[in-house]
């Protein structure tokens, strides 16, 4: 790992993204932009389960359900178990119904 990848002081492997010389991210993408971009992508998935994620002060995320449940989670990996508890089932990225929804939206775009 290059020395720049750890500059955020965060530990989760998915967080090593924000610096232009690290993983992905255009040179103009700041840490804040990166977090908002992540939230926007993940909401494309959570929407299928009627859930929503918001950035919370650049430190955590707030997961919300359509029925008003909310939970603060620290990182991306923590989103999924919290979401499972809210909807009472697993969120499977290989679920054919989820993938069909994504395909349909891609076609619309």
């Amino acid at each position, binding site marked *: 790992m290059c020395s720049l990848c750890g500059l955020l002081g965060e*530990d989760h*492997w998915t967080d090593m993204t924000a610096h232009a010389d690290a993983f*992905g*991210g255009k040179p103009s993408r700041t840490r804040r932009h990166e977090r908002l*971009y992540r939230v926007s*992508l993940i909401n494309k998935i959570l929407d299928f389960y009627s859930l929503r994620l918001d950035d919370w002060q650049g430190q955590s995320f707030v997961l919300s359900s359509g029925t008003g449940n909310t939970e603060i989670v620290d990182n991306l990996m923590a989103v*999924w178990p919290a979401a499972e508890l809210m909807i009472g089932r697993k969120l499977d990225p*290989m679920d054919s119904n989820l993938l069909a929804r*994504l395909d349909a939206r*891609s076609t619309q775009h």
Partner: protein
Amino acid sequence: MANPANLIPVNIITGFLGSGKTTLLQALLGSPAFADTAVLINEFGEVGLDHHLLEEIDKETVLLQSGCICCTIRGDLKDAIRDLYSKREQGKIPAFRRLVVETTGLADPAPILSTITSESVIRHHFRLGNVIATVDAVNGILHMDRQPESLKQAAIADRIVLTKTDIATPEQSAAVTKRIKQLNPTAAIIEAAHGAAEPSLLLAHDVHDEKHKVEEINRWLQVASEDHHRAHDHEHAHGAQNVNPHDERIQAHALTFDQPMDWTAFGIWLTMLLQSRGEDVLRVKGILNVVDVDTPVIIHGVQHIVHPPSHLKRWPDDDCRSRVVFIVRDIEKSEIERSLVAFNLLSALV
């Protein structure tokens, strides 16, 4: 996150009961190149090190003639590693530069790996090195057929040491080797009749070792290439997608992706997959062509544990596509491919 180069590598030696872990460990401890190694075992009696003992530091710790430190695990592995590190920092034991943990024969290595990578103190001082599994050439197939622990130990290993080849028939050795290659084609298989194996290859050559990083990646990519050719031949022969010759629950799938990978989308996909099917995703290894990044990114995970991704300075060959090997249980190659491709297009929906 600390630079992995500054962390103490931890090697796990696993393997079924009687498969030769102890013999291998004895051979490794005798290597001068690894004299500054600390070893955690379950009890001294298992290793039969008594005649090597030079100095007893305390009831659980001895200093061996080779310079290695050997400790027993009393209770929790977490406490044993923390205690060892504390003694190191206090100067009570030599400043070891590597730690080897020997598991019991019936252990699932995954929780041990998780302790090293996730425990709040340990992960700041140690990093995971190669996982080494011993497989008995005489009884290995029997063990893998009947003992799920044995199968899992071999499936997640980076190095597989084939033991007892001196008493196995050539047919037995060949059959076990073939089975291992089907189960875990990314692992290096080393024959060791009496525990004699190249210690550096087993312990030190890993993806965090700058001198051998490319060599290790090439081993993974070789699998991707072979799988591609097997799939090609198989499709011609049967018109089918499944490249595995046997209907095994655990399968190795090598996938190649033409489109550059959106790192954020990849992180979302893999974390979601590991949450829902982590028990069935035994290994993930590969290099990614990440959007807006010129050099390849190494991705490397064991079950729920994903190593901090790292860079390669250049592509190891002319093929600049993302290539990833998945060793999974009850998951088809087409399922992974369809799902990851769909997630990689998420940015188009924003």
